[in-house]
């Protein structure tokens, strides 16, 4: 498993003017991790990345890279690679000169520069365009040039700031796989900032979810999806149905919840601090009718998603739920039909308000 610690971020605070943008940020990145910082725009994730790279300095806290305190080290002495959201390719230099820049700065010999550029062109599949200028190549290629330019100097870790956000949707999936391949081939530790939960779910080994200047939860994609810490994480990652409720009874780890859809039983392995709660479940957590946790409604609409069918259910009490069922059952469901379903008590989630 990932053992060796490579980057440690300790209690980072940052204010711009009087506005706090980062609050008590701490986490550890281990070698060979693909570490995602995921959050909605404006949550401070890019600022955090820029602090790690040294373009911005924190008001408080420490950054430790490979056991060395780099909190006040300028960016050109950090050995941290950075791939910019807009790639920041130098428009007056050819692709190969963009890529070789870092090696020239480090005064490598002509021969070894040539060899290394050749090597990185192969890894990033950029052969054949090395003599073009950045404005002559496609967005996807520009992105890989930016990647190559950072990788060639062999940084200890590589930071990527929303690298796919400027790419159109069609290409994005292809480039996502490409990134995954490069990550596997180079074995580089990467920290990746994004607001796209799908990107994070498909690529990450570890995800840190951020909300308004703080990290809310860190864990593997599976952990975060299955055991979200709060309603924000639950609804930011994947789809979720929410129902307001009140705890009326508790028997060990079984909670009895009253909602306007009736009584629900939920199995949760932790304390709840308030009686007013949100009762949540994922669309795919539904099962056919059972004795408890039953919801009745009418099928208002459905979306066909290939393998799955997503039904929009409208209840008499005026609640809307989305549930997914296997596509081959399409025959059994029609718009306007009545439907009854239930949710297993261990698949229901409870969040405090």
């Amino acid at each position: 498993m990932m053992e060796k610690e490579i980057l440690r971020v300790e209690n980072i605070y940052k204010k711009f003017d009087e506005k706090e943008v980062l609050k008590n940020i701490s986490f550890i990145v281990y070698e060979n991790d693909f570490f995602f910082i995921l959050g909605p725009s404006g949550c401070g994730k890019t600022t955090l990345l820029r602090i790690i790279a040294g373009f911005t300095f924190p008001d408080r806290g420490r950054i430790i890279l490979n056991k060395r305190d780099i909190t006040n080290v300028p960016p050109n002495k950090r050995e941290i690679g950075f791939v910019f959201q807009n790639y920041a390719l130098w428009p007056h230099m050819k692709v190969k000169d963009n890529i070789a820049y870092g090696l020239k700065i480090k005064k490598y010999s002509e021969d070894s520069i040539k060899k290394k550029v050749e090597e990185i062109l192969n890894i990033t599949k950029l052969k054949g365009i090395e003599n073009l200028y950045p404005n002559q190549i496609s967005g996807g290629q520009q992105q890989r040039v930016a990647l190559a330019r950072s990788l060639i100097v062999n940084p200890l870790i590589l930071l990527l700031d929303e690298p796919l956000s400027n790419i159109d949707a069609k290409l994005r999936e292809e480039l996502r796989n490409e990134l995954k391949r490069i990550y596997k081939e180079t074995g580089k530790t990467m920290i990746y900032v994004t607001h796209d939960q799908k990107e994070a779910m498909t690529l990450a080994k570890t995800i840190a979810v951020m909300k308004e200047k703080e990290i809310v939860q860190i864990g593997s994609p599976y952990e975060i999806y299955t055991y979200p810490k709060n309603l924000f994480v639950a609804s930011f990652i994947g789809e979720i149905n929410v129902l307001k409720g009140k705890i009326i009874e508790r028997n060990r780890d079984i909670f009895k919840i009253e909602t306007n859809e009736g009584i629900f039983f939920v199995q949760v392995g932790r304390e709840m601090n308030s009686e007013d709660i949100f009762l949540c479940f994922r669309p795919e957590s539904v099962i056919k009718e059972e004795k408890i946790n039953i919801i009745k409604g009418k099928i208002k609409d459905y979306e066909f998603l290939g393998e799955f069918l997503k039904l929009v259910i409208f209840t008499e009490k005026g609640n809307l739920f989305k549930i997914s069922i296997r596509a081959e059952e399409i025959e059994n469901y029609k718009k306007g039909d009545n439907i009854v379903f239930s949710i297993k008590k261990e698949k229901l989630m409870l969040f405090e308000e």
Partner: protein
Amino acid sequence: MKKNYFFFILVVSFLFFSLVYPISYIIFQSFFHNGRFTFDILKITIDNYVIRKSILNSFLLGIIVVITTSIIGIPLAFIFDRLNFRGKTFLRILFLLPMISSPFVGGIGIKQILSRFGSLNILLIKLGIIKNPISFIGSGFLGIVILQTLHLYPLMFLNISACLNSFDISVEEASYNLGAKWYHTFFKIIFPLILPGYFSASSIIFIWSITDLGTPLIFEYNDLISVRIFNAIKDINTNPTGYALVFIILFITILLFIFTKKYIEKKQYTTGRTPVLFIEKKPTGFKSYLLYFILLLILFVSLIPHITLFLYSISKKWFFSILPEEFTTEYYKTVFTHRLVKTGISNSLIYSCLSTLIDIFLGFYIGYILARWKIKGKTIIDTLSMLPLLIPGIIIAFGYLGTFSNTILDPMKNPLFLIILSYSLRRLPYIVRTTYSSLLQLDKSLEEASYSLGADTLTTFKKILFPVVSPGIFAGGILSFSFALMEVSCSLILAIREKFYPISKVIYTLAGRVTDGPNTACALGVIGMFITGISLFISIKIFSKKIGDFFRIG
């Protein structure tokens, strides 16, 4: 709008009559003698020692001013682009102030400061630093350098700012990220990226400097091409030297223009800029005081001509003292009673109003043609309507004088028509540019939608086109008006009889009179500055950062 060929022919004939014909005439006169092609005129002109000296002096002046404006303008642009400090927006506008008056008006003030018994000498003597007064102005060359520098560095500042704005700060960060030091980053990344813009700004400043007529005249410095041209007016019909000199300037101008345009087209890089969320570098403590000190010092020094002009205009007595000893408002009263001043003001108002109207009308129409018509030779109209930004007033004025003397339009008889023509030609590009760019943003389908709903041409114009382009035209019009009001070269050259003098020629004439003339000239200058300042301020408000577009080639 349907194609209206009547207006189109009007536009073409305006451009031909006001621009193509006079310029061709100059070229013709410099190369044809008695109907035969010859290089002799050019050769004789250059062989003349005095003229050769003037040409070299002009080049020297231009190069020095490019260097001095770079020294002030480039660091300023970096300070404003890279640092965050309180009052930045306001200070940015203040730094455009030195452009509001023609340097020649400020020249009257600067003379008061730098002359043998002027404020600076007296200050230095009182402080015991020197015993005898120093002749700072000397031949006048230094005075011209100072005034032009103080007038033109905002141009450099604006242009370099625009360059820095055209690429994202991340290109610099990417360099640091790969281990580069600041000098690597500056010379390998930033410098190549701003070079095209720097070259273009330098060309404009160079041309502006060598064709400035007012400032050398105020300092009575004759060894410059512009003054030689001015002096050649007297025997314009017998001596072709003037044409040859104008041709030389024209040649340099066009050469620089073509070179800049080619160079910029080849090397223009923009990466587009993601909006900077926050400019991090905020100087604190001592550093911030130092920053304000430097900025305010530059600002103060560059406003000295304007400040002294104002002091001069309200001083009753200002001899052998650092500051005036007695103050009076009588010169401002004189402004409204003095016969020559009254003539000047009313003339200028007439000239400027009419030329602005022509600009608005033609400028809008040309902008519309460029944005909407598909016709052959559109690039010719494009180039011709932008050319006046580039061609110095002195060339246009001299060309008019040569072309139209002894015709019905002879400025000796009545220069009204030619002055208005020259004013409107010189500021036409402002309106063309602003109309063109706002129409480009307005998709053609918006007009078509209006037609499809049954609106006619006039209604569509009123309801759809006009609201979109009017703010730009309004701002461009104000700018044209105020620049026309204080226009120098054409005014000095074309207004020959006192009856037709515009404001700048009145100032020039009064400044040369010994008694109370200079004070009244200053008062008039201050009023002019005030009007220009306000209109520039309004235009900046409307155009915001795009104001720099008016002072750029290509």
